[in-house]
């Protein structure tokens, strides 16, 4: 990392930490979404960006984490700060099952994508039909504003938690990037057979990446539950959430450290803008049209995402 790079990051971080002092609640909520989706995108980035195993079912892990944390809080009085780890563990278990089935049976590319979609859909259907977790109505989380419950009176608390999550995920990915796991994942992504021939246990490392990714994503489920206060199977296990998770890293630069963060900074404000201007005209979902167009544009013109050309332009060297 060059001094310039370090300086820019430091300055950005300082600004982000100081922002709540000057911004109103509405603006802060936009940042909460930016950080949270950057977090989820970064977790996804690990297995799908660096590892090249595209997953379109990551909502499954969010949902498992969210439901577990909430059920533990509701029925056993467990604080979400602890419950989140149980949720993450269960999500990791699901990841292990999906990964084992998929990788052991040699599913690659589109077939693996479909398996991940199936996993999320199965979770959704099961949750819809299980009264113990609220069925189609879902679960409602009462608002207490109690920090022990991972809830805050105003957006500032949520802002800092979301920021911390984003930094955590980014830190994990940065460490992985410079480790054996990272080197192996990228090799697997580039050419799985060549990697195997060079002594890489591709099955094991793909599994590790997926389990780690699932764990992190599941952790985020606790935040989801206590920020949105409602868990419904169609929302929290649904394909739209999985797509939302993929969008940030793909637009920002999948397989790069800054990609999910950049992507989130591009997409979330877009959503906010369209909500402000178009929703008034009665047009729902216009930001998603913009997302779609952006996705198409990225695939056609910037296949490695927005970050690599940006890094080059700013003289930051090869995107890492």
């Amino acid at each position: 990392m060059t001094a310039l790079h370090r300086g820019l990051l430091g300055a950005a971080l300082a600004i982000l930490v100081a922002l709540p002092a000057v911004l109103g609640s509405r603006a802060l909520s936009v940042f909460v979404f930016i950080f949270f989706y950057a977090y989820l995108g970064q977790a996804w980035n690990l297995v799908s960006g660096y590892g090249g195993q595209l997953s379109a079912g990551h909502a499954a892990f969010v949902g498992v984490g969210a439901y577990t944390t909430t059920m533990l809080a509701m029925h056993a009085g467990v604080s979400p700060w602890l419950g989140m780890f149980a949720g993450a563990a269960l999500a990791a278990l699901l990841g292990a099952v999906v990964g084992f089935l998929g990788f052991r049976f040699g599913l690659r590319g589109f077939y693996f994508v479909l398996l991940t979609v199936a996993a999320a859909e199965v979770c959704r259907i099961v949750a819809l039909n299980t009264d113990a977790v609220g069925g189609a109505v879902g679960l409602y989380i009462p608002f207490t504003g109690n920090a022990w419950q991972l809830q805050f009176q105003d957006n500032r608390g949520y802002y800092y938690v979301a920021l911390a999550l984003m930094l955590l995920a980014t830190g994990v990915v940065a460490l992985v990037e410079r480790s054996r796991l990272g080197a192996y994942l990228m090799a697997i992504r580039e050419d799985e057979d060549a990697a195997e021939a060079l002594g890489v246990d591709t099955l094991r490392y793909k599994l590790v990446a997926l389990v780690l990714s699932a764990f992190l994503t599941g952790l985020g489920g606790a935040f989801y539950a206590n920020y949105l206060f409602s868990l419904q199977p169609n929302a929290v296990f649904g394909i739209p959430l999985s797509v939302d998770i993929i969008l940030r890293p793909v637009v920002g630069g999948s397989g790069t450290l800054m990609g999910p963060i950049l992507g989130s900074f591009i997409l979330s404000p877009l959503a906010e803008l369209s909500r402000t201007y178009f929703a008034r005209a009665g047009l729902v979902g216009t930001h998603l049209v913009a997302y779609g167009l952006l996705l198409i544009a990225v695939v056609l013109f910037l296949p490695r995402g927005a970050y690599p050309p940006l890094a080059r332009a700013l003289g930051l060297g090869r995107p890492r």
Partner: protein
Amino acid sequence: MDLTFVVQGLLNGLLFGGVYSLMAVGLTLIFGVMRVINFAHGDMMIWGMYLAWLLATRLGVDPYLGFVACAAVLFVFGFLVQRSLVDRIVDAPHEMQILLMLGVALVLENVALSIFGPDPRRVRSPLALSTVWLGPVFVDVARLVTFGVAVGLTLALYLFLTRTDVGKTVRAAADNGYGALVVGIDVRRVYAVAFGVGAACVGAAGALVAPILPFSPSAGLTASVSSFNIVIIGGMGSLVGAFVGGLLVAVAESLGAVFFSPSLKELVSFSLMILILLFRPTGLFGRRG
């Protein structure tokens, strides 16, 4: 378990299977020819439904006639999408295609959402307001007509591919793109035609389903996933597989609704799909490669 329920479930499933087959046939054609996975398939179907709705409510055209127009419009759309977008990334890794079509799906779904709103709609067809009794079981005429038209279209497609010159060039390009180029076939145009035909199939399917089920834009991605399920089970690239797969999945889901519960029926098709993915990835009728 009353046998009547089972037979009824079987019958309903079979009839609905015609639509599933048509959807799957369209998807498998696109994959078989270009190795492209059309993630926007279900959202194209949604537009087939809405176009049918527009024709019915604004121009009074019955969907059982209007489906032709829907198919035509979707053909043009598919042709243009392939020509302008997909063509650029035919050689790119699968992940890129998936993401591209996902983008198209998002645009299609949300433009529909913006224009038509999120509330479910339905189309009433005067041709299909009655039921016919066959002994203890009844047949919804709408479903019967839908089934008939869907099967007819699939048959027409089969004839198109095997008996017409255009159809044969499509199959040639599917079999060996490079070879087709060598013998002077305009492969890019063939790809666009194939994509268009695939889109037309699913557009027609949409128009045919409109009188049977309420629909809204959010069903798009789910419909895509259903189509994938069928095509995986039947075998990617196999027309016969898509046709049989459609009937099979529809019947399995219908029986699943009878034996377990209506909201669990999708679990049946997902379970089937996962089993096939793991143990027989080429599907029931697919070839290797």
